[in-house]
């Protein structure tokens, strides 16, 4: 049995220890710089091939009375050059009075030249190894300087968050690709498949999503850009979109707007005697939300059947255009046809995996589109109107 004095001394030591130790990781929230966005550009010289723009949310301005005034920028961009990402990030300590935390990172914007010069894996390596950074930030490409894109000052917004929030509009238009998160990009790169990344451009005082860039699986470098309309085709082919509009014309040239409620794309692979072909089955359901033909017989079955047929033709046209570019220009499968093929022909896929993009480029694609109009809107006109 220990004497009373020893027990007392020991417990005192424990208490003192408790007060002294701990709190290693404690740092109050106002003494932290939250990095919200990264912009990666090429540096000009060989010593510093990378230029990183870090967008840090400036909390100092939001506090107290300044919050109501909403003046000035809500962020601070710091552009540094160097030969490694981590090195640049740590160099921030020379400029900022508080440590930078990347756990709220929202967007990574990569310049076109950097993306075509470097393996994407190299560019994202630091963020993947760092266990503070999440796998959730969106990865985007830009034809302009990434730093400039992040520099656009939109009133009351942090540009990176603003860009990231575009993807919430996914169900409004087919011209937005689904958000590509850091984790998904990595998964694709590891699986050895090509990736398509949304692209962003800056206007005078705005930023907008504008097409997409294709990263080929061969060397993980940028193959080229797609336009808005081709992105629409990508969404139709991959079936990953959330819905949106289909804008087409009837035979008299009147504009018809078909709103897609939901749709499905089902590529059916056929592989015989070394010949690869796909039957792409598209089924869609939606409403007519605008019709410039002013026809009186909105509810007649014939008319609706005609609109459905015309819509189907338009979809085929869009897809063919996109597919041509993918197969001829880029020779990359970014519409995930490999997935259906892997399921249908698992053994063959294992062999073909390495040069899948070549097989894809040479494949025959047939389209079978079935568009359904379930609702023509509330407007029912009597025959008097022209």
């Amino acid at each position, binding site marked *: 049995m220990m004497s009373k004095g020893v027990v007392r001394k020991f417990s005192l030591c424990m208490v003192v220890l408790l007060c002294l130790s701990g709190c290693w990781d404690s740092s109050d929230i106002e003494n932290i710089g939250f990095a919200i966005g990264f912009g990666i550009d090429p540096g000009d010289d060989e010593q510093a091939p990378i230029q990183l723009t870090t967008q840090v949310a400036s909390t100092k301005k939001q506090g107290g009375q300044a*919050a109501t005034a909403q003046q000035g920028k809500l962020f601070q961009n710091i552009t540094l050059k160097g030969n490694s990402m981590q090195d640049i990030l740590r160099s921030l300590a020379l400029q900022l009075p508080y440590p930078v935390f990347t756990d709220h990172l929202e967007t990574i914007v990569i310049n076109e030249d950097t993306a075509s010069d470097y393996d994407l894996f190299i560019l994202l390596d630091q963020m993947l190894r760092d266990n503070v950074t999440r796998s959730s930030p969106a990865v985007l490409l830009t034809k302009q300087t990434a730093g400039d894109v992040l520099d656009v000052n939109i009133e009351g917004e942090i540009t990176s968050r603003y860009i990231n929030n575009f993807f919430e509009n996914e169900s409004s238009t087919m011209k937005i690709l689904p958000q590509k998160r850091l984790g998904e990009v990595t998964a694709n790169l590891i699986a050895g498949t090509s990736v398509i990344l949304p692209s962003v451009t800056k206007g005078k005082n705005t930023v907008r999503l504008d097409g997409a860039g294709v990263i080929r699986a061969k060397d993980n470098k940028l193959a080229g850009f797609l336009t808005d309309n081709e992105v629409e085709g990508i969404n139709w082919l991959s079936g990953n979109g959330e819905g949106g509009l289909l804008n087409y014309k009837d035979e008299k040239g009147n504009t018809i707007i078909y709103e897609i409620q939901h749709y499905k794309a089902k590529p059916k692979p056929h592989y015989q005697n070394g010949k690869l072909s796909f039957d792409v089955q598209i089924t869609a359901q939606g409403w007519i939300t605008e019709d410039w033909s002013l026809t009186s017989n909105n509810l007649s079955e014939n008319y609706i059947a005609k609109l459905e047929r015309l819509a189907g033709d338009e979809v085929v046209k869009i897809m063919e255009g996109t597919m041509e570019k993918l197969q001829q220009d880029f020779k990359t499968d970014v519409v995930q046809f490999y997935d259906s093929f892997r399921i249908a022909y698992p053994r063959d896929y294992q062999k073909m995996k390495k040069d899948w993009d070549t097989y894809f480029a040479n494949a025959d694609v047939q389209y079978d589109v079935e568009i359904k109009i379930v609702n023509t809107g509330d407007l029912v006109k009597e025959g008097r109107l022209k």
Partner: protein
Amino acid sequence: MGRIIEFLARTDVWLGTIVVVLVPVLSALLFKKLKELRRKTNVRPKQHFIPSNIVLTEKLTSNVKSIKAIVGDSSDIIFRQFKLGNDNRSCSIVHIDGLVDAQQLQQAVLHPLLHGKQAKSRLNLFRSQSIKDYLLNHTIEVSDIKVTKEIDKVARQLLSGSVLLLVDGLDEVLILSVKKWISRSVEDPISEPLVRGPRMGFIENLRDNTAILRRMTTDPNLTFTDFEVGERTKKQLTIAYIRDIANDELLTEVKRRIEDLDIDHAAESGYIEQLIEDDYLSIFPQVQSTERPDRVMAAILEGRVAIMLDGTPYVLIAPATFSVMLQSPEDYYERWIPMSLIRVLRYIAALLSVFLPSFYIAFVSFHQGLIPTDLALAIAGTRVGVPFPTIIEALLMEVSIELLREAGVRLPKPVGQTVGLVGALIIGEAAVQAGLVSPIMVIVVSATAISSFVSPQYNAGIALRSLRFLSMFSAALLGLYGISLFFLALCIHAVKLKSFGLPYVTPGTLYSKEDWKDFFLRLPLFTMRKRPAEYYPKDQVRRKKK
């Protein structure tokens, strides 16, 4: 093999081992010691508050003298000497002024004694045996009469308000019960108000309290067993139970603990609670206390035992579990769907009142990445310019809230309201304006304060209030990891804790679907066909119909 030896030779391994072994062993020793503190007994010399060497004799004057010697010459004790009826025998009544119904005493005792006639009686009044018979059977118009020779009983009865009648030639004392003293009227219990339910609370008088319970049932099995507690003050303590429901083992355990407890004065049932509880080191109350008769009735019908002490409206109920602390009688009075939701709400409130400030601390000073970006920026914005770390800020606010609360209890009612208002203004507005605390902290603290008021049982509420501070410190020390450790420690303690042999987290530990019907939810009454199995009632069936 060589690598193993190499591993064993390392000093850090040994150091780690020593710490891992020493910390639990030493804390076990420490707690053992603390537990022994309670069992330590002090030898008290046998006290005789009433000299037992005094014996009652047949001489009235000597008896009166002995009583005077025992009770001293207090001014409130009245000695009245008179002659019995037409007889010449001396009598004396002794009582305490203020504890006796003077009118009844005059009408039912003094009047018949002074005017007693013996004309028709053939008794010889001068023989002591017959005088006793005469008084008991023919004269005194009081129902509760005891006759005794024991001097200490006589003295105790006198001091508790009975009237003593001493007659010359009789070596016994007649103890007449004509008690009456001022007592409060039955009121709505202030500490446990309900929207729906009887507006009746216990009062300070034990007899009235047992009567209130008796009024609620005519079940002959409702039993009151009396004890005397307090070596010096000898207060009356009654345990109430239903004879054919309450488990025998529980009953004997309760009785044993009450007989074992040793104290010179029990001022309130809280004394009893602390002296009979299982673990004095635990922060949780292990005996339920209430001033609602309907709650007591429901409890004893479940097979629990109520302990009532004279002089306090608070009745103890044993055993108690954690879930009982979050139940309100109203749960059963209103319909089951809303009351189930409200009960779930109470569990959430209990959780919040312990953990909300600590979660805030952990998130803000350790895990900023877990807060949504907008909120993180907003919090960071509001905290700009606050001079203290989060833990100090939280402590500042929590302590001032507790101060206000304590002041609110102590202050006279009209002043109390003003203080509440001023306090709310100071904390809510001025502290934020002065930049001492951030507005979000104010929200957190007030939400915590509100949820701690939800607890239907005051003593459970104050336990959670104190736990909150421990939890805040562990959050400030180790963040979410600290909170998890704290929660684990709390769970381990709660699982180990027992109240009168019943695990404290019952029915959380009992895998009985029957008792879960009345745990987080309160299922419809028809589903509860049996009494809760956790109390092992002798009569299990509450409803026979399917």
